[in-house]
């Protein structure tokens, strides 16, 4: 069974009187341990697709099964639990909580699954070690460089042992050197820890890191190629 399986997903928004068909029948299977890059121009529906895959949104029509769970049939509070257990998010803007130390930011997901405090600290420290930031555990986000902030965000995505990491333009705010650092980290997480990584990007050289490239246009999947 695939880790991610979507069958004929449709998503329609109503903006004023206009209906926007953001997704028009997308079916994709992603296996455990894959490193997938999703590309496409803006308005192609890739963000909508990622929101649905990330359980942040629900499709208008179609079915989405994630690790054996029929996501389309769950309610909102169950969906929050699914995100917590199955998915780690890494965003373009890092999305760390300000005035809160790196360590506490990494602990955050575990507050919502009621992990005891001492266990939280321990696991958060482990995750920071995995991204090479244990020395910066007590720094605030604004005391860290962009690359370091993104690595804190990656540590946060690891801490609940979720099988999937969704990375939405993770290098969009980083310079070349930091981008390479972050992408190397993703590659290592994919190879060493077997994490399934789904990456949205519009930079071809970033997409190069992935083993599979899916391209979107006008709400539909237009290409899906596995490298090698």
């Amino acid at each position, binding site marked *: 069974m695939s880790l991610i399986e979507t069958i004929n997903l449709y998503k329609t928004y109503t903006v004023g009187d206009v209906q926007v068909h953001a997704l028009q029948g997308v079916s994709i299977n992603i296996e455990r341990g894959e490193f997938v890059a999703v590309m496409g121009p803006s308005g192609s529906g890739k963000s909508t697709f990622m929101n649905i895959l990330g359980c942040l949104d629900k499709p208008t029509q179609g079915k989405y099964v994630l690790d054996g769970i029929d996501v389309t049939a769950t309610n909102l509070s169950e969906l929050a639990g699914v995100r917590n*257990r199955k998915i780690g998010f890494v965003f373009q803007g890092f999305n*760390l*909580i300000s005035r809160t130390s790196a360590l506490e930011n990494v602990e955050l997901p575990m507050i919502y699954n009621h992990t005891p405090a001492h266990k939280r600290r321990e696991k958060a420290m482990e995750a920071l070690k995995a991204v090479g930031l244990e020395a910066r555990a007590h720094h605030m986000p604004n005391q860290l460089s962009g690359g370091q902030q993104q690595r804190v965000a990656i540590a*946060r995505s690891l801490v609940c042992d979720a099988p999937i990491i969704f990375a939405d333009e993770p290098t969009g705010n980083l310079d070349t050197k930091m981008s390479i650092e972050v992408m190397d980290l993703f590659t290592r997480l994919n190879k060493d820890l077997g994490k399934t990584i789904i990456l949205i990007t519009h930079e071809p050289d970033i997409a190069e890191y992935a083993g599979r490239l899916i391209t979107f246009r006008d709400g539909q999947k237009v290409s899906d190629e596995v490298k090698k």
Partner: protein
Amino acid sequence: MIDTFLSVFRISVKAIFANKMRAALTSLGIVIGVAAVITMLAVGSGTQKSMEERFSRFGTNILYLRQPWDLDESITSPKDITMDDVRAVRRVRGVTAAAPYISSGFEVKYGITKTTIDVLATDTDIFKAYDWQLASGRQFTEQEISSYAQVAILGDSIAKTIFNDVDAVGKTVIFDEVPFTVIGVMKKNGQGGFGFDMDEGTLIPYTTGKIKMNTGWGNSDPRSLDQVIIRVGDFNKIDEIKVAITNSVRNTHKIHPLGKDDFQLDDFASFVEEAKAASKTMSILLGVIGAVSLLVGGIGVMNIMLVSVTERTREIGIRMAIGATSADIRLQFLVEAMTLSCIGGIIGIILGVGVTMIVAANSTSIPAQMSLSSIIISFAFSAATGIFFGYYPAHKASKLTPIDALRYE
């Protein structure tokens, strides 16, 4: 669960302290509200306590006969309260004592020192009415009363002040230039009714009080009394005894059967009513201030929480993305609103306790008494304000969708 709550609480405290000035201004209304509530409760329970003290000292068997303070307009020539009334009351069945009562202040001289002293002009029935005891010496004699004798019975404290440990009986004191012989000294009693403090005061015969002294007395008619202190034997019969006293005094005053009373007969209950009415005004005032401040403070909390929710929309999105449910978000903002108003509550309690202590130290007419329950009640008020006014912003935050919240700039 407690663990989670502590984490949420820490997040709230951090968020509040990130905006210290804003938090301080927001909680000001709560501070004033809680301080007013706590003072109000203290005045209320202080009045209760002072009532209970009077109750336990005099019992409920005391009646006070006096001219009304606000006389009915239809009564054109009210009769004074005189010794005729005292004698009439004494004849009523069930009355065990009826003492004339005229009070004023004297200047007292001893050696080179001058001071003022509370004087109660009365007769021996006052001992029975108030259950007062002599420490040494004797009470007035009939002969002393009828002959306007210049004799005095000193209170415990004033006797010690003037004569130290020497027995005062037989000594002479000068009241307003007139020499009086001390014939007795009271045991320690504590404060009496209507603010007369026997320990710091002196008793003289009512006759002497009216005739010999020519200064400091308010009544024009030399025979009129301030009031009559009446003791009844059986509290259970107090209502019928009151009727009998009223009839007897109406007879003495020759009031027409359809005419209105030109006097007033108060029992313990009406005394309590008066004191309660005085403290009630104060309580109502404080209650209104408290309610309005808590309302305004609560709206302030709601306002600032709405601002906070908007400012932190992105943070809410992040939290939702990593697994916070709507209920988690709602709890966080509720706890934050509650923490904010409870900080105001704690400052308000400190302020209220301070105000109460100042009031209690400086005012005898407004008794104030602090109690643990009033502190708990006012703290609960502040917490409830936080929950009530924090609910809407918290609910609003919890209704955000993760995508919209994350997209918010």
